[in-house]
């Protein structure tokens, strides 16, 4: 027996919601649904259809991400001078007009984090499907990073919302949200669902010997 036994091999299942250690129902029960005796949540040896669901949500998120970047997210009007901002032009404006530090933060939250999520989840999906033993610990860490920082992408959505609420001086000055911000909000929500549907335990399935 391995020094680090896995629950699956021992016929155990850990409840994801409450942490209870449960005995897995026998094979004869087939696909019968088993629920946690402590909290009542459905128990899964692995999250159901993790690959299909994560891919579907990730692709949907990517399709939303294109208009989110191409379409303007916000219109600023002052004295009849109308200016449509995209995510990138908002970052550039911050950089040029005196807050490079904040510009870097917004760039990370709005552009780097979503890109990292697409690349990281894509890499995880492909490498796990192939049962790869490559850099397992690093990939596990990558997944936790995605889970940890994912929701910070909502930053730009809140900025547009707050500026809209603040800048309303009649005809003189006005900020309006444009469709890009809706697509961006949807991108963030869909990528969050995608990372939730992925099962990090899959990283450690497959060939045991190729690592360490």
């Amino acid at each position: 027996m391995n020094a680090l036994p896995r629950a699956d091999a021992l016929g155990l299942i850990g409840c994801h919601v409450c942490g209870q250690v449960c005995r897995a129902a026998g094979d004869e029960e087939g696909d019968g649904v088993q629920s946690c005796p402590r909290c009542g949540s459905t128990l899964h040896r692995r999250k159901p259809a993790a690959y299909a669901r994560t891919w579907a949500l990730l692709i949907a998120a990517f399709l939303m991400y294109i208009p989110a970047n191409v379409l303007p997210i916000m219109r600023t009007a002052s004295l009849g001078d109308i200016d449509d901002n995209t995510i990138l032009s908002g970052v550039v404006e911050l950089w040029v007009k005196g807050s490079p530090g904040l510009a870097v933060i917004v760039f990370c939250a709005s552009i780097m984090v979503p890109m990292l999520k697409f690349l990281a989840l894509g890499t995880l999906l492909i490498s796990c499907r192939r049962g790869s033993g490559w850099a397992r610990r690093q990939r596990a860490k990558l997944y936790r990073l995605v889970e940890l920082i994912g929701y910070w992408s909502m930053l730009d959505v809140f900025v547009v919302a707050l500026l809209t609420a603040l800048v309303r001086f009649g005809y003189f000055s006005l900020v309006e949200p444009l469709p890009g911000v809706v697509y961006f909000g949807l991108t963030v929500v869909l990528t969050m669902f995608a990372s939730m549907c992925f099962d990090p335990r899959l990283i450690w399935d497959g060939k045991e010997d190729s690592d360490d």
Partner: protein
Amino acid sequence: MEASSRDIAAAAATPALLICEQCDTVHSRRPLAKGEVAECARCGAVLERCRGMSTDATLALVLTALVVFAQATLWPIVTLGLNGQYVAATLWDMIRLMWFDHSQVVAVLAAATLFVFPLAKTLILGWLLLYARSGRRAPGFRTLMVGLHHLGPWTMSEVFVLGALVSIVKAHLYFDVIPDPGIYAYAALMLLITLFAGMDLTRLWDETREENVEAAP
């Protein structure tokens, strides 16, 4: 003393095994010292942490968060000035304007992640801890614990604080900006939320006991 017998009962109820939810490795549980964190030997994920904060202290923190939360939501966040004209905005102005400005999706997202979910999370936590002080399970314990788990990643007050900061800097390019008390309340809320984000909720399952609700006085 009563407290020590309760601790023994809680220790006896603590299961001996722990399964890493990130990699499915089975670990035998060992008692943790204050501030200690148990990490998975296979994948490095945090298995369990001992914050060393008593239930009473946590409850006090949650009640404080509730007061600060009310202030953050009701008070204006920032005031803008242009040629002697002033506009102040609260969280609700923001949500209302997004709804009427053809961005209903954003309005719903903001209302959920900045108001409904954080409020629900704080109220549920307060309710559960109120009973957990005496080792009991609050009415609806099971459902609420499961609900709390699912609410986990969907509260975004800390992102909003940063968003407000970015908005202030952007608006400052064209307008007079006056930060209002709401933004300070939000900053305080961010600190409080960080404090209980590190909390290991699953311990409530071990530390409280089922009791007959009808039999309760």
